[in-house]
């Protein structure tokens, strides 16, 4: 079941805008940001690096944080990550 995007957007606790950053900077910044957040909180990540589309799910898979939503708007990707 996918959670509607609007719900996630409302639920987010923090936003990391990584637009303009190229691989692997969005991931490096993401890992840094996640350390500031508490378990259960939702982080919204915005990126426009083409690699991010698969990098972020791979990072979540590897680190155990949950990717609860992903959306694509033109060249911009939005990810919603629930901190483990």
């Amino acid at each position, binding site marked *: 079941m996918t959670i509607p995007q609007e719900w996630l957007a409302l639920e987010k606790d923090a936003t990391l805008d990584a637009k*303009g950053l190229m691989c692997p900077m969005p991931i490096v910044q993401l*890992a840094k940001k996640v350390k500031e957040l508490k378990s259960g909180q939702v982080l919204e990540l915005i990126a426009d690096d083409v690699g991010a589309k698969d990098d972020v799910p791979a990072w979540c898979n590897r*680190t155990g944080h949950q990717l609860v939503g992903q959306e694509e708007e033109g060249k911009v990707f939005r990810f919603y990550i629930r901190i483990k």
Partner: protein
Amino acid sequence: MADKFCMVVSEGSFDKAMMPLIMGNTAASMGMEVHVFYTFFGLKLLKKGVKPKLPGLWRIGTGMMIKKMKKVNYPGYDEMLKQAKELGVNFYACSTSMALMGVKESDLLEGTKVLGASKFLDLAADSKTTLFIG
């Protein structure tokens, strides 16, 4: 226990300098334990204040490459190195290369460990991923 990721770097050009930092910083951000072993021409990358150049004929294009990277806001070599340190990436200098290339321990970047092949292979044998950059 965190997954281990080991790399061997045997060339000292700009591309070979950036690659292990890009891979290493990403891996560290993914929660992996990163070990990078610098040997032969790669060793000079561990010396303080080194400004690596593109290889061969591309050498003269190094400045242009750095300019382009700046333009798209990509971190430079020094910044990547700093980031690697913050992320806890481990840097090792090959003890034999140091002797062959006349590099002293005091020439090396802070935090670098001098290592022999056995100890590095001991780490590599426990790694899920190993890469050779050269």
